């Protein structure tokens, strides 16, 4: 099969394991058909799917490397995205450079897809900077640690786009836990009221640290948005194609004046919440095992192999490319220098502030005392 042929459904009759969400590529790597969402990925060729597969491999490799760097004391903390690669790559790869992302701390794959430099992914986690990159250079705000805050920012940005008459879209990434915060409800209300071109992209990874999603939501999270007047899509978050299709449809809606869409990507956080978490206290290993079988990478690999697109040779070259990225990433991390002491006073205000200036020169005098 030529790799430039669109990735079509193989088995139209195949039963979807979970009829509650959109799925185009099931856990076994079978391409399922879906009348509504197939058209949104009808142009995706085998080569393009292989390139998405490469992204998945690379972001997982970065994640593994970061976890190792944390264990080696090079990073203070790291929030792994292990298991959530497809949700992030599938959505982020559909965005245009002029769209704008507002994320939480776990969206390192989104950042990678937006073109954030590898070294910039770790500045904050290494503790050398308060933020890793210039948001305007990559169309992505620096991550919000305060849960849910970014959903309001995305809404505001989207209203700005609409007022400016451009068809750029803002995307807010957040977790299932975040949906309990008042900010997220307020964001949905504002987005609906102003018909904002914003996508609320919820990665339901089943956990908010130790709290299962059932504590935050008694019904599928996607059901919440319609109550605010926002249509929603529940998608298999471990299916890169389905995520892509759902995001494209939401983007299209937003660009054409249709307003906000809520996407719930159903996925699973396979690792700890962060490197300081101990999931053995609350995760049922049997359930974890079930999710392992729904891994987002394995299914793409199985499909690509069955189509003859992924050969051993290609797999090896992707792997070596991932290793190369990981090496570059590691080097970028360990070569980050500690900031100058007096930089602690930088950028508190955009304009001169006499109080800071005074403290800064006092502290300078203090530090100089040690040199004498």
């Amino acid at each position, binding site marked *: 099969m030529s790799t430039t042929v669109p990735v079509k459904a193989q088995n139209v009759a195949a039963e979807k394991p979970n009829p509650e969400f959109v799925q185009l590529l099931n856990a076994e790597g079978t391409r399922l058909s879906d009348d509504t969402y197939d058209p949104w990925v009808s142009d995706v060729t085998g080569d393009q799917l292989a390139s998405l597969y490469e992204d998945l491999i690379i972001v997982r490799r970065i994640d593994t490397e970061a976890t190792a760097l944390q264990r080696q004391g090079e990073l*203070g903390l790291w929030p792994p995205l292990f298991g959530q690669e497809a949700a992030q790559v599938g959505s982020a790869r559909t965005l245009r450079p002029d769209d704008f992302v507002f994320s939480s701390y776990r969206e390192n794959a989104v950042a990678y897809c937006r073109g954030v430099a590898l070294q910039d992914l770790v500045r904050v986690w*290494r503790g050398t900077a308060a933020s890793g990159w210039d948001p305007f250079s990559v169309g992505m705000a620096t991550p919000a*640690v305060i849960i849910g805050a970014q959903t309001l920012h995305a809404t505001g940005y989207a209203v700005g786009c609409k007022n400016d008459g451009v068809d750029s879209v803002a995307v807010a990434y957040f977790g299932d836990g975040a949906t309990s915060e008042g900010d997220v409800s307020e964001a949905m209300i504002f987005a609906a009221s102003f018909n904002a071109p914003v996508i609320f992209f919820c990665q339901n990874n089943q956990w*908010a640290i*130790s*709290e299962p999603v059932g504590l935050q939501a008694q019904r599928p999270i996607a059901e919440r948005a319609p109550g605010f007047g926002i249509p929603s899509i529940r998608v298999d978050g471990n299916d890169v194609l389905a995520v892509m299709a759902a995001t494209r449809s939401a983007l299209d809606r937003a660009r054409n004046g249709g307003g906000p869409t809520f996407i719930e990507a159903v996925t699973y956080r396979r690792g700890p919440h962060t490197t300081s978490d101990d999931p053995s206290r609350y995760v049922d290993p049997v359930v974890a095992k079930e999710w392992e079988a729904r891994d987002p990478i394995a299914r793409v690999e199985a499909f690509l192999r069955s189509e003859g697109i992924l050969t051993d040779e290609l797999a090896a070259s992707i792997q070596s490319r991932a290793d190369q990225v990981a090496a570059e990433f590691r080097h970028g991390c360990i070569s980050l220098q500690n900031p100058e002491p*007096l930089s*602690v006073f930088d950028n508190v205000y955009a304009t001169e502030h006499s109080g800071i200036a005074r403290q800064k020169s006092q502290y300078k005098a203090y530090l100089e005392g040690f040199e004498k």
Partner: protein
Amino acid sequence: MTELTLAKALGSGLRRALSDDEKVVLLGEDIGKLGGVFRVTDGLQRDFGTERVMDTPLAEAGIIGMAVGLAFRGYRPVCEIQFDGFIYPGFDQIVAQVAKLHYRTAGNVRMPLTIRVPYGGGIGAVEHHSESPEAYFAHTAGLRVVTCSTPQDAHSMLREAIASDDPVLFFEPKRRYWTKGDVDEDAVGLPMGTARVVVEGTDVTLVTYGPLVATALDAAEAAANEGISVEVVDLRSLSPVDFDTVSASVQKTGRLVITHEASESGGLGAEIAATLTDRCFYYLEAAPVRITGFDVPYPPAKLEEHFLPDLDRILDGVDRALGRVNSLTGWSA
């Protein structure tokens, strides 16, 4: 007496409070199975059940607001806010509701809430995980604000806070969670609202609280090696401040240094300096000195050593109060 870490002493305080009074309930994020991210509530849900130790949805306004309703119903809720920087989504409920309900209802409604907040820096964390927001709350009438510095105080002060009919902001110095000390679970601690002279001295009064008490004690020891006698006062209570204890100390030493991690402007240090200047004007031999965090957001981990008052900066402040050569000698402001 048992030797416990400060975190375990808090846990044992919560356990006692839960056993002693069935109206005590705990609520917060991850406090159940996980036992809290610092394990302070470890094992409590297992032993007291999910109705008394409640994992809540991820919403701080929800936690505090629900506690208000529980208090209306006669409960004594103990809320855990996971980290200092996450108290702000619940800020409105605390300052506009919790603080004012007793006053607003002519004393008819009690708000015996305890709001536990791990606070302060020095653990190399990312943003929003190292803040010292105590001044916002000390500024709000209707709230009591306390903080502990030893396992014994952690245990007894927490029990006292839970027993209090007033709402208490209970700040836990997170970088001291692993400090060990003897704890007598039956000891009746100093009454709420009182400061403690930890080390007596005659040359300078050094006032501090929470995470910096240990640093201040180190500084006092270093100063003693230079022949300077420093009296260290652990405030314990930030609202009200025990000005009688601080005044008595300053009347003895004639010099005052205040140190805290929180930023300087509008902080507790300013309040103490102003009140002590007022109360001890004729005893003071030098202007009160503040050694605090700078007026900048809490910086990234690799810069926190330049933000947090440490032994050297405190000693520099002591020198200043004594009129000895110090970093500001010759500095023109």
